[in-house]
């Protein structure tokens, strides 16, 4: 911060407090513990002031003829109250300002606004997906009336409209707050939504020649305070009050958007973004939030196999190590989708098996300019810190493939990658004397592998990752691993012990502790210290080399 922001004295409900200049009145009241109901106001969007829900009573200091504030007996300025309500979202705090958030006038205003909003509301909460997290429901209970005085016929508007491939609109439920319109214009930079049929029939609509197909369209569903915009994917799947929300991070790219995984009885129903202003703000791309179904796929590998036959875990890990040791020269391919803990154990396993040739598979694509960076691996920075690759990601892949083709490398250990993606051909895999693979879904490598170890998907395990900006973030477990599958760190620990090393690691905390002792970057840390919002591990400048 370059200059000190001056603090202003503001009276909220009779108590004098100080707020930095530029604070919105609605935020100041929230900070003072006086929540003001709002529909259209969103801290990340522009302020239209159209819902009128945040009305408050406001006043400014009374002035003497020479423009000095009149001081009361307590030495504080006397406030001259403005005789009509003001909206608190479009108003910055000012010196000597007075605010009343629970005066009879304010209460009456809120009651009136609620009554107007509910006049044409269909009251179909039993079938509305928003029920349970609906501002209209909440504020109706808090500030509304218990019954309607409206005897006329309600206005009919379009229902069940497909605005785009992922968003469904019910215009009757809409309170015309325009959050979605502003989001599409200001954040997604795809200005396709707007109001049409102005007046009593006002409706949200898409531009006639376009659809709401931006990769950020589902964020409009999150910010919609009512059930007007609902996710087509989540529509009628589960009521929100059943969902257990697990704080975790997204693993589809190097940013690691903070998310909430909504699950019930070991089944994931939806993923929603979690606010973290150092990472993803309040948003997440649709492609990332919908990419969880493969975790629940029928295809999942449910148990380890040895020579394509199901085996017990102890047998499988012993067989894997025996086959690798018997094979001769070895190489290891590690996925940058693994957590730090797993990468650390992979490195220890490589040392134990005398593997000097190891690399990760890089995934660089064009960034989208909003949230998605070029690096589509979630933990390239972690892999760099923990030495999963030696020079640059993917620099040795060619050498490994050629070594296998020439026959100098006879065994490959692949942790979480399909070798066909890494440049191998199908015949190369058949040449290997030992191919040990960890995977959650079947692929060409698992079909050719001598030992397949079924791991856990990202929503089924705990661990940490470092994003492209050098921020250490935490994954949390939302559901149990499918079938007999195991946490990858346990698999790696068992492999390590099968080589004859005594690992003495009994929990993910043990792995982190051991890692923090061996890797200077993690010194003094543990999973608890990372916190829900992550921890800046590397200085931000260094990240240029990581993202390049």
């Amino acid at each position, binding site marked *: 911060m370059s200059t000190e922001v001056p603090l202003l004295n503001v009276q909220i409900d009779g108590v004098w407090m100080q707020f930095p200049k530029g604070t919105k009145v609605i935020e100041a009241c929230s900070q003072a513990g006086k929540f003001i109901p709002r529909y259209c106001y969103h801290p990340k969007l522009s302020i239209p002031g159209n819902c009128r829900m945040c009305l408050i009573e406001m006043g400014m200091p009374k002035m003497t003829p020479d423009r000095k504030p009149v001081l009361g007996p307590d030495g504080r300025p006397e406030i001259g109250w403005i005789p009509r309500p003001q909206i608190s979202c479009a108003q910055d705090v000012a010196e000597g300002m007075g605010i009343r958030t629970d005066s009879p006038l304010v209460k009456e205003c809120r009651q009136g606004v609620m009554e107007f909003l509910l006049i044409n509301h269909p*009251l179909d*909460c*039993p*079938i509305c997906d928003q*029920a349970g997290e609906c501002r209209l429901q909440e504020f109706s209970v808090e500030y509304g009336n218990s019954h309607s005085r409206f005897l006329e016929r309600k206005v009919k508007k379009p*229902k*069940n409209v497909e605005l785009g491939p992922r968003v469904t609109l019910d215009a009757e439920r809409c309170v015309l707050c325009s959050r979605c319109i502003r989001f599409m214009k200001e954040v997604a930079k795809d200005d396709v939504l707007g109001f049409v049929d102005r007046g009593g029939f006002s409706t949200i609509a898409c531009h006639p020649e376009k659809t709401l197909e931006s990769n950020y369209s589902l964020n409009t569903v999150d910010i919609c305070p009512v059930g007007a915009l609902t996710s087509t994917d989540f*529509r*009628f*799947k*589960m*009521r929100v*009050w*059943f969902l257990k929300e697990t704080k975790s991070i997204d693993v589809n790219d190097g940013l690691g958007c903070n998310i909430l995984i909504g699950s019930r009885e070991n089944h994931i129903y939806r993923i929603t973004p979690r606010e973290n202003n150092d990472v993803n703000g309040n948003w997440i791309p649709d492609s990332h939030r919908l990419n969880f179904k493969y975790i629940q796929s029928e295809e999942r590998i449910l148990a380890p196999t040895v020579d394509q036959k199901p085996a017990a875990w102890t047998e499988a890990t012993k067989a894997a190590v025996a086959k690798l040791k018997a094979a001769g020269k070895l190489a290891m391919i590690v996925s940058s989708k693994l957590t730090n803990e797993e990468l650390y154990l992979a490195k220890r396993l490589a040392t134990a098996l005398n593997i000097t040739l190891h690399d990760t598979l890089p995934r660089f694509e064009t960034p989208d300019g909003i949230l998605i960076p070029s690096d589509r691996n979630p933990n390239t920075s972690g892999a760099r810190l923990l030495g999963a690759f030696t020079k640059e990601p993917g620099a040795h892949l060619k050498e490994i493939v050629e070594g296998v083709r020439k026959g100098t490398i006879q065994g490959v250990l692949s942790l979480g990658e399909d070798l066909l993606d890494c440049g191998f051909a199908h015949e190369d895999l058949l040449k290997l004397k030992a191919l040990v693979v960890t995977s959650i879904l079947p692929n060409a490598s698992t079909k050719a592998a001598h030992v397949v170890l079924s791991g856990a998907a990202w929503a089924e395990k705990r661990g940490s990752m470092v994003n492209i900006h050098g921020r250490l973030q935490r994954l949390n477990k939302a559901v149990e691993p499918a079938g007999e599958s195991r946490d990858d760190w346990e698999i790696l620990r068992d492999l390590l012990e099968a080589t004859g090393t005594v690992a003495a690691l009994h929990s993910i905390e043990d792995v982190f502790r051991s890692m923090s002792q061996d890797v200077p970057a993690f010194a003094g840390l543990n999973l608890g210290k990372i916190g829900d919002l992550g921890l800046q591990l590397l200085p931000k400048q260094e990240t240029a080399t990581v993202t390049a």
Partner: protein
Amino acid sequence: MAYTVRRPNLTFWEKIYLPNIIAGLAITFKHLKKMLKGETHVVMQYPEEKWDAHLPEYYRGAPTLVKDEHGRERCVSCQLCEFICPPRAIKITPGSIPSESKFAKVEKFPEAFDIDMSRCIYCGLCEEVCPEQAIFLRKDYAVTGESRADMVHHKEKLYELGGTMPDLVHKWNPEK
């Protein structure tokens, strides 16, 4: 504090018991005589004979689902009963009504609705919580089955038991 129980002051005739015993025996013999003459009817021969006709309107038997006068499934699968059910006997799989259906306006219906009658405690909270008046505890009480699976009432069985209840909810009716 100790509480002293007051003993009744018995008269001489009460103290010797005999008159009361004789009076009691007289009643017993009176009933014996009635029984032998076939004048009293105490035992009900269940299940040939049932008390069903005497069950009160508010009797809480097995929970059932009902349809309305248009043949529409009243349940819109809001899952409030599933939420409120103390023994977690109810399991609903929601689904959406296809747009070509004549009830397309309702949008949502239960694809599956299972009540595990081996769990149900007949508390009636599901009936109380239902915002669409779709679930009612009716007068069926003899719920039997040979396996745990038999004890689960699926949607068809629930509608068979529930039948139709007209004129309760009008909001989904077609506009006049």
